[in-house]
Each structure stands twice: as C-alpha cells, then as structure tokens.
C-alpha cells in the first residue's frame, strides 16, 4: 500500500515538476547569457584623488548590449574625469567580454553610494536589463580643517625637487647631438654677425684686404697726377685730399672719420699715440687749410697746396701699419738663414 502510494505521488508530481522547470529554465538561460559587473580600484579615496571604475559585461558575441551613457558625473558627488575607450575580449569562441573604464574623482568627503548600473539588450521582442551590484566609495579628507582663529597663512610654495643629472644619462647620445647642433648654429650666427655677410657668401673665398696705407697712397698719387689745384680746382683738390686721409684714418684707426668734422677728427686722433708728435700738427694743417678752401672760398698759396700734399704723404707713411710676418714666412726665413750659415761654413 505504501509503495502504491509513493508511485501515485510520483506520477502526480511529474507534470508539476515539468511545468516548474519550463517556467524557470528560460530565465535561468537568459541570466547565464549576459552578466554585468562594476568594480572600483579601491573603496577608499582621498578627496580630489582619482581612481578607476570598471564596467564589464559578458555576453554572446552576436548580442547587442547597450552600455550606460554617462555625461560628466556618475552621481551628484562622483565626477567623471575621463572616459576611456572600450575593450573587447573573446572568452570562449561565441562569448565576449566588453569592458570600459572611467577615471572618477570626488570633491566631497563622506561615504558615497554608487547605484546599480543597468545594461539593456533585446531578447526577441523583449527588452531585458542586466544590473550591476551597487558599490560604496569612501572619500576622506586628509587635510587639516582651516581654523580662522589660528590666523591666516600664505600658500605653501611649490616643492623644490632636486635636479638629478643621472636621469638624463639615458638620453646622452641625443643630448650630445643636440648640444653639438646648438654649438654649430651659434658659431654660424656669430660668424655671420661679425662678418655681416649674406649666407650665400660664407663659403666664397675672400680676397685679402688691401692695407689702408696702400689704398691711401694710391689715392694721393691719383690726386697728384690730376694736378687739380694747378688747374684752379682748389675746392675739389682739398675735398679729395681730405676724403683720402679720412678714409685712411677710418681704416687704420677704426673711428668714424668720414662722419666727423675736422675738430672731431683732431680730438679722436689726439687720443691715439702717433709715432711722431709733429704728425698732429701736420694733420691739423691739412684739415685747417682744407676747411678754409672748402667752406670759405680761400685760395691757398702754391706752397700751401704742395705742403698739404707732402704732409698727407708723410702722415700716411709715418703711421702705416707694418705687415706682420706670418709663422710660415718666419719659418722659411729661419731655414734660409740656417742654409746660408751652413754654406758659408762648408766654404771655409
């Protein structure tokens, strides 16, 4: 009797069990097909600090699950600093895990509640929703509370971190190259500024400059040949004579003689030590007579004209710069001397 009773009960329970499994299984299957989770780096954060909130959903590869759309806050107290791009990983062939991280911060101390985050997707014609667990974030304020009664203090100055040269050592090749380039550029700029040359002329070989006295003597010879004062061109004669002398002074003693008056030239030349004191008087005579001839219709005597020209020649010859012997020339001269001495000894 007991056995038959048990059989009856089993027979009666089977349809109910099938119905129950039929109702529960689709829900169980759908729950297994999509799962969502949210996690924080830590549950504790310093006020104003940053950490990452990671959202992850595991789903079939062919299912479209909508991620929640945040603007700039998660909740009133939790702000999003940066939303990182999503990442997809294949789990077992037909299932994928999509994750997305958000850098969050908070400027309010206290325990903040992150509500469950919903992920929605369509299953057939039914909209389904997968929800994460709610989270808690403790934001602490490590700073001392400002007490106005203690007085007002200035802002703390920035920390002065020491410069560690070793940090740069790993870049030593690049640094060496950088400094080398800088040095080359600096040298080129200095050279250009000193020579005042256009870039195109840097690599053109320069002709050696004629010494100032050679130019001046050539100009004086020309003036002498032209016989200007003899033909009545006294003004032109003195203009050319003083111009030649002023150009010579400018080149020889490096002051702006062409832009100076006779008085200024005399002041400038008195600051220079000339080999002969008479030269000051001779230069003064030339400039003085020239000023009278040029600006006062003065007609000097023949002797004065001759004297001016002779004084000019004398001044240039007495003050000319002696060419300096180069090392090569000195070596050649020394060898020649030694050879001459040895010849004379062998002769004896």
């Amino acid at each position, binding site marked *: 009797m007991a056995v038959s009773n048990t059989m009856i009960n089993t027979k009666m329970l089977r349809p109910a069990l099938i119905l129950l499994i039929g109702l529960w299984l689709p829900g169980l299957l759908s729950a297994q097909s999509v799962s969502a989770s949210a996690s924080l780096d830590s549950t504790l954060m310093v006020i104003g600090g940053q950490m990452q909130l990671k959202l992850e959903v595991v789903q079939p590869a062919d299912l479209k699950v909508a991620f929640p759309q945040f603007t700039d806050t998660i909740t009133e107290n939790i702000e999003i600093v940066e939303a990182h791009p999503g990442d997809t990983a294949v789990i077992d062939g037909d299932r994928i895990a999509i994750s997305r991280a958000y850098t969050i911060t908070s400027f309010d101390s206290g325990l903040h509640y992150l509500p469950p985050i919903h992920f929605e997707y369509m299953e057939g014609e039914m909209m389904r929703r997968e929800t994460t667990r709610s989270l808690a974030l403790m934001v602490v304020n490590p700073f001392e509370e400002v007490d106005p009664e203690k007085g007002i203090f200035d802002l703390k100055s920035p920390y002065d971190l020491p410069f560690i040269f070793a940090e740069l050592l790993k870049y030593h090749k690049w640094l060496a190259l950088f400094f080398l380039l800088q040095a080359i550029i600096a040298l080129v700029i200095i050279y250009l500024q000193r020579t005042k040359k256009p870039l195109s002329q840097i690599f053109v070989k320069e002709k050696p400059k004629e010494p100032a006295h050679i130019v001046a003597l050539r100009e004086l010879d020309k003036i002498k040949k032209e016989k200007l004062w003899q033909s009545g061109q006294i003004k032109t004669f003195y*203009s050319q004579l003083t111009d030649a002398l002023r150009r010579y002074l400018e080149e020889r003693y490096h002051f*702006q003689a*062409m*832009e*100076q*008056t*006779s*008085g*200024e030239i005399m002041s400038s030349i008195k600051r220079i030590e000339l080999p002969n004191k008479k030269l000051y008087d001779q230069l003064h005579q030339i400039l003085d007579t020239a*000023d009278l001839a*040029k*600006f*006062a*219709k*003065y*007609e*000097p*005597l023949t002797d004065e004209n001759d004297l001016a020209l002779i004084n000019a020649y004398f001044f240039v010859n007495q003050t000319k710069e002696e060419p300096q012997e180069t090392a090569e020339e000195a070596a050649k001269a020394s060898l020649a001397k030694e050879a001459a001495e040895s010849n004379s000894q062998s002769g004896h």
Partner: protein
Amino acid sequence: MNQTVDIKELNERIKQESSFVDLLTIEMNKVIVGQKHLVESLLTGLLSDGHILLEGVPGLAKTLAINTLATIVDAKFSRIQFTPDLLPADLLGTMIYSQKNEEFVVKKGPIFTNFVLADEINRAPAKVQSALLEAMQERQVTLGDHTYKLPEPFLVMATQNPIEQEGTYPLPEAQVDRFMLKVVISYPEKTEEQQIIRHNLAQSFPKASKVISPDDIIRARKVVKDVYMDEKIEKYIVDIVFATRFPENYGLEKFREMISYGASPRASISLAMASKAYAFIKRRGYVIPEDVRAVCHDVMRHRIGLSYEAEANNLTSEEIISEILNTIEVP
C-alpha cells in the same frame, strides 16, 4: 694768404661786430654759473632772429638766464607768467572805452616789448598760446581796426617744465615748429653747484651790466645774414633734414617706423640761420660743419615726430639726431 676779397672783408667786419659777444658772455657768466650751452644757445637765438623754447626741470635758472640777457641788452623786457586763466587780451592788449574822450582807446599788452619771457608757456590754454605764436610769426598784433608792429628786436623766450604734465596744455607740433631753438637744460656740474651754493649763502648775487643796445643786435643780425655758407654746407644741412624724412635712403632703415613725421623746410632754414649765428659767435665769416653740428640738436629736437614704436622703445629724438649726424658724411 691770398684770400678772396669778400671773405676777407667779411671776416674783418665780423671780428669788429662780434666784439660784444665776449662782453655779453662774460656778463652772462657773472650771473649764470655753468650752463655754457644755454648761454650760447640764447646768443644764437638772439643773433639769428629766432625764438627760443627752454625746457628743463625747475630750478635750473631758465628764468634767471633770460632775465639776465634782457638786462645785458639794454632793451624793454616783459615777463608773462602763463596761467590757466590767462586770456589773449592779457597778452596782446585790448580796446578800452574812455569816458573822457568818448571813444575806444588802445591798451597795448605786455607783448609790445623787445624781449618777452613766456614763463611756463604750457600752463596757458591753447587760445593764449595761439595768440602769442601768431605774434611771434607775424611780428605784428591787430587790435580793433589797427595793426601794430612789434618793436625790433623782438624775441620770445618761453620756458616749459618737462615734468608735472597734469593741468598743462602741451604745445601742438605746428606751434612748437615756430620756435627756432628748443634748448634742453641739464643739471650743473659738481664744482658749478658748489659755486651756486656759495653765492646763495653769501647773499652776494653778482649783477649783470648793460653792455649792448638793441641797435647793436639789429646790426649784428644783418652781419650774421652775410656769413658765407658754402654749397657743400647747404647740401649737408639738406641731407640731415632729409634723413629725418626718409631715413631709409641714408642707411637708417631702423628709423623708418620710428619717425612719424620728419623736419619741415622751416627746420632747414632755421638750421642754416642758427649755423651762421654760431659761426658769428665763434668770430668766423664762414660756416663749417662744426657749426651745423653744434646747433643741430637744438634746431631739430622739437621738429621730429616720434611714432608709438619709438616711444615704446624709449627712443628719443635726441638719439635719432645723434645717429643721423653719425651716419651722414661730413663734407
């Protein structure tokens, strides 16, 4: 020396006529300690018939110098303190109704004199400045229906203070141009300052004597006009003035953006006249480049307009003139 007749004669005349220059300088130096440049500039203005604007901080003897010059030249002298409430009639004069004669009679103002000291000219409003500057240019004043000539010699010496610009009326460029020279006075040397202290503590202020008459000045001015100026000097003056207008043509491209307007033809005339007067003071019958350079700053400094760029770079007209003089070749 086989000198041409004109210059020889001229040199002789100048040596005779300029004999008073030394006397005048001695008398000025009795009262004004140091300030050699100021004394020379006042003489240049006096002899070249040009009005002078003196600029310097307070206490540099601007007013005393002009006062002394008026005393030395036995001439009529008026001092007008320019104030914000001054009216043109206070300066030029006006028509007053005479009840006795039952007609309007002319009451001439203080401008009818040989030397006018317009003290702190930039403190009076534009209408008074304009009235004075018109009289300076025309050398005549119209009151009612009649035009009255101003006496000869007529010289206006105005002073202005470069600081304390609040409540002043700066002279417009067109009016500043009417002054032949703008003389900037600097502080005295240490030894000069010591001497000034001694004079003041001892209360023994030397007094200048009258050594020349207005007629001597008029005669000297005629001689100054005869001082020979060579074509080369004229070209030099023109080059200097043109360099302020077109600096790029003289290798001074850097000033092109710095100068808003260059010196006027009146500057060329003034530079030539002042150079002649300076040659006369140096007792020469001809102008040399030194004379031009000596007066160039005083003639040109108020005639060059500086741009905003120049002011932002703290560039002054003095520096521009110096640079121009150092760039243009001397004949």
